[in-house]
């Protein structure tokens, strides 16, 4: 008797839902082994990593706060990824969103108008869109690879921000630190839960997840993008405009990342600094894939990713484990998830030995 993978006639919906659970359980088991091998009490380590960070309301608020930009960016990226448009530069688009939104906040500094915040959201989106338009233009005009162009623009964006906070936008009363003035209240997201840092930016992220679901799974444009990603000859045959798919895929990702960047400077940071993101733009790529390019999957994946960030910080402080722990758990999760995903399209079949194997072997020999 042996086991064999056999392709299913149709992908299993049930396994689609069960697979992330399998992955989580396997990650926990592997984590147990890992902690034991490091000489830590696995139960205590687990508590520190997964429970301690969300033990109270404040911790829970932090979880949602960190998940917010991740889900926002990942949904935007998923639009492009479904169409095989590989925007790797969300981090740069995020920075441009922060710059544009920050520019609005600084320009209207001191004003108490309630229009400033919406204006910052729009400006952030425009910043991200403009930065994403560069790879889109180069790809559609000159067939330049959008992976490279968008990635390289991340570094340009970071230098642009760095120059702004060192030179023109530096706070004159900031003791020469490279930072802008603190934004006034009218340029900050109001808190969602008093006493925590969670703000209404989270609601915007949730709304984008909902809109992303409608766009990707219900709209004809989303359907066209999926076709373009799965079979470009079929998209050409049906008359779907390939360039429009590229533009849309990149600009949607850019807009989402730009709004996420705005949310950082109008939220936990509250001003422009040389660095406005701990790599959310890159982590969101993993979130998009762990969430399988589905907005609801992305919602869950962003929570998990956020927990891994918080758990990693707690493990550094509480267990004296290196910060690489976070990356290790992210990697294990992705690994087990991709492994479990095999069972969406395949199932295990028990193969019984053929009749009279001894005779067969003899004859074959």
């Amino acid at each position: 008797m042996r086991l064999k993978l056999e392709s299913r006639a149709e992908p299993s919906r049930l396994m689609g839902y069960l697979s992330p659970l399998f992955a989580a359980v396997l990650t926990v088991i592997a984590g147990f082994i890992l902690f034991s091998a490091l000489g830590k009490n696995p139960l205590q380590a687990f508590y520190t990593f997964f429970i301690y960070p969300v033990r109270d309301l404040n911790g829970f608020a932090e979880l949602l706060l960190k998940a917010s930009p991740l889900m926002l960016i990942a949904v935007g990226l998923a639009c492009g990824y479904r169409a095989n448009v590989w925007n790797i530069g969300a981090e740069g688009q995020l920075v441009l969103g922060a710059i544009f939104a920050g520019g609005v906040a600084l320009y209207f500094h001191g004003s108490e108008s309630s229009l400033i915040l919406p204006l910052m959201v729009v400006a952030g989106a425009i910043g991200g869109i403009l930065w994403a338009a560069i790879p889109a233009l180069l790809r559609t005009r000159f067939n330049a690879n959008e992976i490279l162009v968008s990635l390289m623009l991340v570094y340009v964006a970071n230098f642009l921000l760095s120059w702004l906070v060192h030179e023109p936008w530096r706070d004159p009363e900031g003791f020469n630190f490279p930072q802008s003035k603190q934004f006034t209240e009218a340029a900050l997201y109001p808190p969602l839960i008093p006493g925590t840092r969670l703000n209404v930016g989270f609601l915007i992220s949730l709304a984008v997840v909902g809109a992303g679901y409608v766009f990707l799974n219900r709209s004809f444009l989303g359907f066209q993008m999926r076709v373009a990603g799965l079979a470009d000859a079929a998209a050409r045959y049906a008359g779907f405009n390939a360039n429009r798919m590229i533009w849309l895929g990149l600009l949607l990702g850019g807009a989402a990342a730009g709004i996420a960047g705005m949310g950082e400077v109008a939220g936990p940071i509250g001003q422009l600094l040389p660095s406005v993101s701990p790599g959310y733009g890159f982590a969101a790529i993993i979130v998009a894939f762990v969430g399988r390019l589905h907005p609801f999957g992305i919602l869950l994946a962003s929570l998990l990713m956020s927990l891994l960030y918080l758990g990693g910080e707690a493990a550094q402080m509480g267990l004296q484990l290196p910060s690489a722990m976070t990356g290790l758990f992210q990697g294990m999760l992705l690994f087990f998830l991709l492994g479990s995903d095999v069972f969406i399209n395949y199932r295990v079949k028990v193969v019984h030995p053929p009749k009279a194997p001894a005779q067969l072997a003899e004859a074959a020999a």
Partner: protein
Amino acid sequence: MSSQAPKASAVTPRIELRGITKIYPAVVANKDVSLTALPGEIHAVLGENGAGKSTLMKIIYGVVKPDAGEVLWEGKRVTVTNPAHARDLGIGMVFQHFSLFDTLTVVENVALALPGKPELGELGRRITEVSERYGLPVDPRRLVHSLSVGERQRVEIIRCLLVNPKLLIMDEPTSVLTPQAVRKLFETLRQLSAEGCTILYISHKLDEIQELCNNATVLRGGEVTGHCDPRQETPKSMARMMIGKDLPHPQHGAPKTGEPRLVLAGLNRESPDPFGMDLKDMHLTVHSGEIVGIAGVSGNGQQELLVSISGEEPISEKHPVIICGAEAGRMNPAARRELGLCFVPEERLGRGAVPRMSLSDNALLTAHRGGFVKSGLIKFSEIAAFATSCIKDFNVKCGGAQSEAKSLSGGNLQKFIVGREIMQKPKVLVVAQPTWGVDVGAAAFIRQKIIDLRNEGVAILVLSEELDELFEVSDRLAVIAKGRLSPTKPIKETNVEEIGVWMSGMWPDGGDATHFAPSTAQGG
């Protein structure tokens, strides 16, 4: 090579299958199938799409493992573990769906199937030698992606012939060859048979089987329904064994033609591909209510003509392609579909349908203009109902509207695609290879549907490499050769021989076209 002649029952069978059963998740592909073929025998395996022919051949070739039953090779039980093992035993196979690497050259592809590391220059010479001997011309240095379907099949056949097999399995080998090349191939197969090589021959062309084969096993629904000697049968009687009833013959009344719907007015097109075919000054008019057929060996400009008409690769001028009165040369496929053009392409998976999408989604692919999108959102239940009625009306065997396109057999997917296009009520329908690799029952069904559509007043253009098919459905016929299009001729005023001559580029007023005569025709 064996010297024993195919004598009576005293001879050990070259291959014997006993009680082969193979069950897939959705379907029983083979149920208790037995088959015996002697050395030198040309044995036909007959059956409709999904009857289990291909699965049975894949079991012999070691691609698929049976769930029960045994294989005897020259009297000994064997378990063929993989195709390399099969080739070691002396089994060669020409697949219906090609197994070639697009980015490699012909000679590199052939080298991959041979043991060891053959020297490519020497191998190239052997390929040329074999291809000339068997009338299958192909340049060993060309990249496979630039080859047409017919040329790729030649490579598959040559690849098998190079290793002097004892058993040659041929899965629909003649579907894209000219009548002359088929005759040449049959000579080759008879020669191989005389040398003692056994041939398992799968084809839906019953007249070919009758001409070539001396034994036949008929499959239906995965089970053996009969054996016969094709020489003692008629194509009609074999079709009855195969599908369990008489074969419907397409009804074809006199055409009632109306206004011109599709016009080519001096279509010129330079191919960007160095191995592609330039189109030169093509003229053609297809009226409402008629079917115009275009015959020709693959690789003579069919692909280029089709993408010029469909708009997948628009041309630089407007006027050479006129659809329903509109100059459409520079329009994209979507705009041309708005004018009333529907198109069934040659490749079903990946072009005509998205493999990993459901039939419902694949219906939406081109049928979305029929009110299935409202305010930018998809009406899922309506498009599923459309797909379901297409499945029902066009007799598509599948698990339902949510089945993935890639789970369907070639013939069933073709019925679905043809159905999807016809149900959109086109004004002009362009069909490439309507029944390529489709069994006789489904082929007759598809042809009848096309003829019905013509009787409703649709202008229809059919490109096919099967002359029988074109003579069956067309009202007028033209020939494409070396990027040029012949004048059309009413079907009643011409015959297979004349069209065969035209296929080599020699038609009246063809001018210098004679200089471009493809070498395939010279072989006959």
